[in-house]
């Protein structure tokens, strides 16, 4: 029993690192551009496909494939911002509909690229297991890699946002785009940065998770549901809240899944999200928004 609990904790940590990368990206995009990116799950999917193609099919080193996944999806994000979201600024529904269009297109591109029938197998990059603190609980190295890569990316993002001038300006944009614009911060430029960063993180998350999940064109659906729950619970517009909620929610979800049932876990998650929307729509760490 003790062993199972420890294993579940490790699984929850793995899931929460990927979820945190997704949620932080969504929050960043929403903060600066006021667009809810419905295609975020598909960006995750493209990242996973990139790693499948480069690493599993063409023998690139795993880390290089992840870096490539990040860059490819980042570029997709830049195109989306420049040509789809920018003309829609000030029309939140318009931006959302644009992202729905992208969702459809990316799914078909994935089907054409890799075929829909067979599951894409991505082998583990690092073999073997590690004995967790000498307890006899064996954890595959691949899972440790996921946690490590995500942690590094999140720390880099935090340093970027809190220690560089560009990061300061980006946070200012996210807090209040209008006031930031009055200070001479170019919303266009920072929308591009936010969208690029958000998309890149989603691509990296998809890439790093590729060996652990089912890679198929429709894998984005469950990912986006989880990410929505997390950003609502964490408070839309709070990066710290998103990370905290990602950890809390995935622990909850992984434990209910392991010890009871996966679908029930998702239903409960959705109900928690509704409850948060009703009782405290600003989430656990969000601040109130001006109308």
């Amino acid at each position, binding site marked *: 029993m003790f062993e199972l609990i420890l294993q579940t904790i490790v699984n929850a940590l793995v899931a929460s690192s990927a979820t945190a990368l997704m949620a932080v990206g969504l929050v960043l995009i929403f903060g600066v551009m006021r667009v809810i990116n419905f295609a975020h799950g598909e960006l995750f999917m493209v990242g996973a496909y990139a790693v499948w193609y480069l690493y599993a099919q063409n023998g690139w080193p795993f880390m290089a494939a992840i870096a490539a996944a990040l860059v490819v999806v980042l570029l997709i994000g830049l195109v989306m911002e420049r040509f789809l979201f920018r003309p829609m600024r000030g029309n939140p529904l318009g931006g959302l509909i644009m992202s729905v269009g992208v969702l459809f297109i990316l799914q*078909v591109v994935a089907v054409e690229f890799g075929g829909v029938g067979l599951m894409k197998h991505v082998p583990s990059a690092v073999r073997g297991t590690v004995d967790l603190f000498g307890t006899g609980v064996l954890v595959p190295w691949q899972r440790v890699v996921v946690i490590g890569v995500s942690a590094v990316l999140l720390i880099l993002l935090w340093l970027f946002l809190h220690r560089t001038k560009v990061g300061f300006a980006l946070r200012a944009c996210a807090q209040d785009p209008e006031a930031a614009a009055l200070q001479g911060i170019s919303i266009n430029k920072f929308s591009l940065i936010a969208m690029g960063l958000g998309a890149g993180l989603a691509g990296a998350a998809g890439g790093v998770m590729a060996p652990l999940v089912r890679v198929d064109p429709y894998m984005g659906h469950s990912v986006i549901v989880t990410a929505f729950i997390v950003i609502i619970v964490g408070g839309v517009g709070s990066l710290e809240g998103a990370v905290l909620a990602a950890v809390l929610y995935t622990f909850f979800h992984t434990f209910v899944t392991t010890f009871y049932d996966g679908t029930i876990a998702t239903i409960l998650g959705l109900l928690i999200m509704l409850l948060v929307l009703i009782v405290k729509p600003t989430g656990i760490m969000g601040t109130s928004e001006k109308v």
Partner: protein
Amino acid sequence: MRKSDNTLLRWLGLAALAALVAALPFIVHPYQLIFLIFLLINIILVVSYRFVTITGEWSLIHVVMMGVGAYTSAILAKDLDLSVWLAMPLGGVAAALIAYVLSFPLFRMKGFYFLIGSFAAGEAIRLTWNQFREPFGGPKGIKLIPSPELTLPGLETIDLTFPPINYYFLTAIIMALCLWIMYRLEKSRIGLTLNAIHWKDVLAESVGVDVWRYRMLAFVTGSFFAGIAGALLAHYIGTINPDRFGLAMMLYVLVWTIVGGTATFAGPIIGVVALSVLDEAFRAFDQFRPAIYGVLLILTVRFLPNGLEALPAKLLGLRDRLTGGPRTAAERPRPASGGE
């Protein structure tokens, strides 16, 4: 143009449309009849979706409401041996009831929060069907749903789903009835209030309109008709499962509605008819369908924000710009009422 002329034209147009709907099954290839039945059901679906959006709130639960109607009607008719004729309207009532209960939490939210909240509520309902084998049948859903039968005095009982032409006319009649009710509602005082809430909800509230109640009313009404559409679907195809009412279908409904345009009653109908006919014409490219929809959606929102219904006005405007001004006052395009 005088008002009486307008009314006369409108009636003539309606009569022509009715004649077309009645004549279509005798013109098309028999297998296309099935396509037409789905199209009529989808027309009920998009018109009822637009009814919900009149107040300016976009929900992502509409297709799940269709599912509520389908599941309720199927379970009542199959497991409880209720007459299909009673089960179908009860499917609509069940969807309306669930919409009413959900109004309490959901209409505390607006805009983006309402959208996400409605999505969460819908997913929770859909996953419940997926989870419980009794009575929902789990992921495989419900099979062998009874079809409606008609017994006329002195004649033998006929199965309305076979041949399909029977069901086509049943669906057409129910669709006409649903559309007529929603049209009348929109033109009534209630409909005007709903529009007022869309544009100036705070102002409407300040002059004594109970905004929550009207939003609830639009949501419950739209959901009722979505439930009817679901019941029609369930008893025709005879088998339903949770996947049929998932996000993919909801996004299709969104595409049909937006590409058609939501400013007028006819907009979503134009959208669903145009895109369905396009699908049918390019059957060979079925695997590209979502991508084509995606491109159309993006192009519409970008270049034709009022949808296909605004296309004639837009073309007239283009011609005017090329030739230098409209020739007569009557030709001048009028702005679509309530367009964004």
